């Protein structure tokens, strides 16, 4: 469990356990309450902010809403910061070319929140259908043009993507399709990689570690932990132009991510 075990030198074992449980209780009170507060306030002031943003920035609506979502994520990071030590590597703005396809492994419900730690906000996230059913988030997701990959047929997805890339916007996908229950990578679906080859957009692999310790699939309470987000070098598309090039690209990216995650876990 990262920071709070083992590496605290010179602390008696018993009081360390007590301290840990107190922190867990505190976290499960502090975080949900503040998240609720943030969400309610955020929804309430968003129309006003929207008008302000429109006037000042003159951005298209979708971009503004993506900015709001990113700011919401940033505030959330602040809310969990007493309990989560976040390490971000490889996310220097110069490295994160636009547009690109971010490909991340999926361990926890909170992965998307952590991803707002990166300096780029103009990203369309592709998700399965269930998050779109969360009534308080759904309108924002739709205005931000998030894509429901479970419901939409491939041709429509491709059409939307074309539009998104033309707008200079990036895309984020989880090629595992669902949260990993054993922490392993398992099978990668080919969609993200097919898009990369089709639109000649580079892949930026994102390796997420530790979020599963915070809230693993199946558990209902959060625990304090270290989280690491490592952004690997953008993967270019040379050498992946054959008929099954996207499969080779998928395997290549999976290998890079597997190696990175294995090292970060140690």
């Amino acid at each position, binding site marked *: 469990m990262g920071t709070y075990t083992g*590496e605290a030198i010179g602390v008696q074992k018993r009081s360390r356990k007590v301290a840990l449980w107190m922190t867990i209780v505190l976290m499960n009170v502090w975080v949900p309450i503040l998240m609720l507060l943030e969400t309610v306030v955020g929804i309430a002031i968003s129309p006003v902010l929207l008008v302000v943003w429109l006037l000042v920035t003159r951005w298209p609506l979708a971009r503004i809403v993506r900015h709001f979502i990113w700011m919401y994520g940033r505030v959330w990071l602040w809310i969990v910061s007493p309990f989560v030590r976040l390490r971000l590597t490889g996310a220097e703005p110069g490295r994160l070319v636009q547009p690109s396809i971010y490909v991340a492994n999926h361990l926890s419900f909170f992965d998307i929140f952590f991803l707002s730690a990166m300096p780029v906000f103009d990203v369309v996230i592709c998700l399965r259908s269930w998050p779109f059913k969360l009534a308080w988030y759904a309108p924002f997701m739709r205005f931000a043009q998030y894509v429901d990959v479970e419901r939409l047929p491939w041709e429509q997805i491709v059409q939307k993507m074309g539009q998104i890339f033309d707008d200079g916007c990036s895309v984020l996908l989880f090629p595992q399709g669902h949260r990993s229950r054993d922490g392993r990578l398992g099978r990668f679906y080919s969609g993200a990689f097919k898009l990369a080859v089709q639109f000649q957009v580079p892949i930026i692999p994102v390796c997420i570690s530790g979020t599963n310790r915070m809230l693993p699939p199946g558990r209902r309470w959060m625990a304090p932990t270290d989280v690491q987000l490592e952004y690997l070098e953008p993967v270019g598309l040379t050498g992946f132009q054959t008929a099954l090039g996207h499969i080779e690209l998928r395997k290549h990216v999976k290998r890079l991510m597997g190696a*990175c995650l294995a090292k970060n876990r140690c």
Partner: protein
Amino acid sequence: MDFNRNEISVPLRRVVITGLGAVTPFGCGVPAMWQALVDGRSAVRHCPTLAGVKGLRTTVAAGVPEVDAQSIDRKKRRYMSKMSIYAMIAAQEAVQMAGLTPEQLQNDRTGVCVGSTTGSTVETESLFLQVLKERSIEGMKSTHFFKIMSSSCAANLAQALGIRGRLLAPSAACATGTIAVGLAAESIALGKQDVMICGGADELHVLTVGVFDTLEASSRAYNDRPEMTPRPFDRQRDGIVCGEGAGLVILESLEHARARKADILGEVCGFAVNSAPEDIANPGPDSMIRCMIQALAEAGVGKEQIGYLNAHATGTIQGDMTECQAIESVFGRDVPVSSLKGHMGHTMAACGALELIATLLMLHRGLLLPTRNLEEPDDICGRLNLLTELARRQVDTAMSNNFALGGVNSAIVISGRWIRD
């Protein structure tokens, strides 16, 4: 680093570490082992199988919990006894960490050097029970031999991973793991191979425990308090606790790692192995001293550059003391020393590689692990700087020793900081 032999200089290549894999009594994976070591946990338990054996005085052991072997193709798995399965799972982790492609694995320049102290004892027992009972070999399955032969681990890994390069299967009792890594490093240094998957694996069996028990070397005073043994260096130590597992490491030439842009985790700087002819069961300090000095010479480092020493120290009264005498003679009393046997027991052929992995992580994390169950060292051992608590210290270069039954000594020097160029 030049090796002068009859006036001819052979330039040796530098050998780096790019992948780690482990199956230990703490479970599968290097993270599980590291976290358990940092938490200071013990994997030693009461072992009912041992308790049921007549004449066996120890009933504690450190066994690997049930592993999921589904990731290994059934057709390959049928030739594998437990030790090979452990080795394979560890190898898969190491290969994944190194990010090696199938092409990089399956060419003539990638080899395997993995050993175990003996072929599968479990299978040997079952075969002989069969043969002796029936006085016939009709019950012998085709898969039996491949599990019993002493190269079983190496052969199975090569088959399952599609290895085409060198297949080496050294066997040198408890020093097997370190020797396998050392020999693999030399294959690469000499330019014979570019990538080597190396390490050691062993499975727990009554026979192995029985050997130590017969030699009066197994721990018997703590059968009711398993986690308090073994007790390396401790005044109250009383012997070895047998364990099992696998430790695998991917070694590569520096050029090969750079060319494929691999993350480099450390470097194998030097390695030495020698024989101790004075006593087959217990090496004396002189041969240990010679071994450590030679390892330093091979590595081209002075003794003052070793910031941490991982001792073999299994918890035997004689062995720990002799090792401490040897360490003091070479390094003096300042170098921090600890043994990891107190946490995991003696994992036999795996221990050399597992201790190397743990030492490497200590270098990376700037955190030195203490010896578990060390409450009060005896007078001779106590002269050294034996760690009893986690110590935050940034160390660049470390040495790991293994001194084995059969009069074999081995020492390896590694560096964890990629600074030289």
